[in-house]
């Protein structure tokens, strides 16, 4: 609760700066219009006109908020204009991709920790996979999958998985290797099998690392889903809203979609944070 004051100060500062920037960036258009009409408006006349344009260079905060509100509450959720509808399309691909990516990441990490050949071979590929810009590879994945008849949710989920498996691999490898030599030696004196060492020591020790990775991973998965909606000329999803917004110069729509995506990501991360706290408390590690 002590955080309320500093947080609201920061938010207020951002809003003020944003309004300032909106006035400054949108003023050119107002002056243009006025010049065409042979007028030279003063500052007081320019300002109101910069904040309510149809296609501003930078929409003002209240425009974005009202567009968001219209998109969320002002439509039936099944409407093509509803942000809930588009958000759900993106969310479902995000979640599917996140589950696939997390599963793959955990399995790879288990392999890497237990098998020297995998340790040497998989990690460089995993790192290499992340150095390829997702914008370059996403269209290829979509097109290839489309050509074999896989369309809709799955190709987007695969791009999500592609982005989200990496933080999970890295975090889980670190987590599964977190137990020190002494703890491993102790289990050796009990004659513990590799399976028992995994179940009783490595896995529980990796839980805090897993949650840290999941937070990064779920945000990455959302980015993947949005990017996956761009190349198809997308008809639905937050990515599609971004794309159609930019086709028609609907900057307010673009910004509303961006904020919707950001809010979605923040909620997903917050949910994982909640699961983290509950799990660690249950394990006796939450303090």
């Amino acid at each position, binding site marked *: 609760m002590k955080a309320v004051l500093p947080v609201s100060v920061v938010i207020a500062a951002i809003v003020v700066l944003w309004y300032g920037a909106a006035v400054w960036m949108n003023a050119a258009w107002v002056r243009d219009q006025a010049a065409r009409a042979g007028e030279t408006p003063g500052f007081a006349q320019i300002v109101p006109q910069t904040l309510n344009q149809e296609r501003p260079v930078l929409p003002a905060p209240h425009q974005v908020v009202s567009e968001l509100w219209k998109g969320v509450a002002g439509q039936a959720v099944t409407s093509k204009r509803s942000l809930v509808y588009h958000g759900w399309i993106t969310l479902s691909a995000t979640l599917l991709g996140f589950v696939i990516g997390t599963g793959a990441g955990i399995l790879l990490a288990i392999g890497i920790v237990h098998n020297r050949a995998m340790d040497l071979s998989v990690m460089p590929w995993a790192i290499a996979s992340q150095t390829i810009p997702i914008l370059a590879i996403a269209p290829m994945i979509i097109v290839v999958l489309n050509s074999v008849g896989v369309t809709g949710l799955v190709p987007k989920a695969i791009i999500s998985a592609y982005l989200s498996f990496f933080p999970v691999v890295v975090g889980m490898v670190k987590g599964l290797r977190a137990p020190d030599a*002494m703890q491993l030696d102790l*289990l050796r*004196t*009990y*004659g513990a099998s590799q399976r*028992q060492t995994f179940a*009783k020591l490595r896995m529980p020790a990796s*839980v805090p690392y897993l949650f840290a990775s999941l937070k990064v991973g779920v945000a990455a998965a959302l980015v993947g889903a949005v990017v996956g909606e761009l190349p198809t000329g997308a008809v639905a999803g937050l990515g599609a809203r971004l794309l159609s917004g930019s086709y028609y110069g609907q900057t307010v729509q673009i910004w509303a979609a961006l904020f919707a995506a950001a809010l979605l990501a923040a909620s997903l991360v917050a949910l994982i944070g909640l699961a983290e706290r509950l799990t660690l408390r249950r*394990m*006796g590690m939450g303090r």
Partner: protein
Amino acid sequence: MKDTARLAEPAIEARSLGLTFQTADGPVHALRDVTLTIGRGDFVSFIGPSGCGKTTFLRSVAALEHPTEGSLTVNGMAPDAARLARAFGYVFQAAGLYPWRTIAGNIRLPLEIMGFSRAEQDERVARVLELVELGGFGTKFPWQLSGGMQQRASIARALAFDADILLMDEPFGALDEIVRDRLNEELLNLWSRTGKTIGFVTHSIPEAVYLSTRIVVMSPRPGRITDVIDSPLPRERPLDIRDTPEFLAVSQRVRDGLRAGHSYDV
């Protein structure tokens, strides 16, 4: 008949034991020509400057290292076989309790791995908790306990599966003097009640003399034994035994042994 044979058999027997680590900087002779017999029920301390192979010896007994020369038996078996027979429990300097398990859960760990039934686990956990005076702390998590209590829990964990040899590598090294005195007293108590054989590594001369029936003095490069002292002190030892002439005499002999070992270096 079989039982008397077992009684006569030493708990740990090392003959001309040697262990050389091959490192990037060449071979390190962690142990050379170590010959030592530890009888059943003995309390044997290993003392010497760091790097003299105390840990390496204890780890060899526990089959965590494999000697390169000589022979080593534990309860008449090779160390690997002795481990399978649950001959020893090992206590490290750090308690190493799992933060996600309660104290009882931590003590249960070896029992789960060894496949004891749930009922037997409960019974044993309760028994060893009493033994280390932690009855009532079973449901606490490790962070709720002091360092000394955590180390007691780790001793309980080593006792839970009824190994008759307890190997302890500087178990109280990280604790303060007062806690240490108390735990030393408790450990002697536990030893006399259970009749375990204890191998105990320490840096402290008073600790070694206070606890042990035999003191093994070691020196480094190569790690070897320079003196083995059979303590003349009675098995029953109140803390103030440390002010008796016998105690001081043994301490002096240990000190001399350590100094003699050092003179090789200079």
